[in-house]
């Protein structure tokens, strides 16, 4: 108990750090993932090729490697002066977007093709068909894998701790260096992660029930 109470502000800052890394990179991942999924199902071959390349590249490289590139290469070559936080959030967001894209695409594939044909026959554009007809019906199938992806993202944020972004994992390092028992520290840190991930699971369960579509 002592560790937690004596260093509550440290825990709190770590918790908020993890929370904000997760939230911001989740938004990036969801937006990018939706765009890339749209590319992958679009009728335009170059866009499809881009989507496939994006997913293949990001899904198959270790996140640590991606972090190294984001932290050391990107500021040198493209955007100098970005903070570690910003770079980490983009690394996490891009990486996760590949998984989001594939989850969305599997959802899109569960919607009967006749739904899109009906939309197109009414004169809807590709974007309208996707946005108004296909994606809303893909939602329910997408929710369970999406919750897994976001939970994985929450845990992946700990990598940012290795790159000078303060979050739960960083808090653990600091406390370990102060000489507290590792078991106790890990217990509290695990609990903090659980608060985030269990909340996520709960939210997604709610979402799943609300998206029920009668067929």
């Amino acid at each position: 108990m002592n560790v937690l109470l004596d260093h509550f502000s440290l825990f709190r800052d770590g918790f908020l750090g993890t929370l904000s890394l997760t939230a911001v990179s989740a938004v990036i991942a969801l937006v990018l993932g939706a765009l890339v999924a749209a590319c992958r199902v679009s009728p335009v071959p170059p866009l499809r090729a881009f989507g496939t390349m994006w997913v293949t590249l990001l899904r198959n490289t270790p996140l640590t490697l991606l972090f190294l590139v984001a932290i050391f290469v990107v500021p040198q070559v493209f955007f100098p002066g970005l903070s570690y936080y910003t770079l980490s959030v983009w690394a996490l967001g891009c990486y996760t977007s590949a998984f989001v894209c594939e989850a969305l695409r599997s959802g899109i594939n569960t919607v009967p093709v006749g739904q899109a044909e009906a939309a197109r026959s009414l004169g809807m554009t590709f974007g309208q068909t996707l946005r108004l007809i296909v994606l809303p019906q893909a939602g329910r199938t997408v929710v369970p894998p999406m919750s897994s992806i976001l939970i994985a993202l929450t845990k992946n944020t700990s990598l940012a701790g290795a790159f000078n972004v303060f979050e739960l994992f960083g808090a653990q390092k600091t406390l370990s260096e102060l000489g507290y028992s590792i078991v106790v520290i890990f217990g509290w840190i695990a609990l903090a992660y659980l608060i985030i991930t269990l909340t996520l699971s709960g939210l997604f369960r709610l979402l799943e029930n609300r998206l029920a579509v009668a067929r």
Partner: protein
Amino acid sequence: MTEVFVTKDAAPADDPLVVLENVNKHFGALHVLQDIDLTIARGEVVVVIGPSGSGKSTLCRTINRLETVDSGTIRIDGRPLPAEGRELARLRADVGMVFQSFNLFAHKTVLENVVLGQVKVRRADKKAAEQKARALLERVGVGNQADKYPAQLSGGQQQRVAIARALAMDPKVMLFDEPTSALDPEMINEVLEVMQQLARDGMTMVCVTHEMGFARSAANRVLFMADGRIVEQASPEEFFTNPKSDRAKDFLSKILHH
């Protein structure tokens, strides 16, 4: 390729609305449409019949480019079908389509199904679109189902909603791709009656169907297809009493048993 329809001004009564010229399509090795030439006049009701696999549905779907063709040209109201994109979307709005499996939007109510195209494609005012949708639903006899979801309706009701949804776009021509083939026998008539009414009102229609009774009573012309070709075309009276081709005779002998 281009200047064939001088007849347009010369014979306004025979005003061509849909024109297919030398259309060919393959599905892999299967030559599903072979040198199709077809002109459909404004206000004409054309019924396409033939054995399954003869290319009738494919023909119907090429007219709004849900199926692309390998060669040949398709014109609607004088304009060639554009490639995929905004242009094509605009043109499709003028071509109503009714599917075998209804394809009503499962996550929208019946009313929303009929409103959606008007608002999102035609940019109609929401209020006006709803009014029009309710009137159309009334016209096809499902006015009291407006707030239900498609899954709560019978097949016949769903198909009538699908017709209302297509009509809401004020199409120049309506395509029916086997509209009654997925229906229980007692529901077929309620859909055919709506289609018959539509034909009487002067809508240009292309119907792929197995309903010979509908072909007899509503069609101006019957197209008989087999193996990717239009084998025979004639008035329904002529076709059913005196078919010319052996293929059509054979087909009719198998389905007409009364």
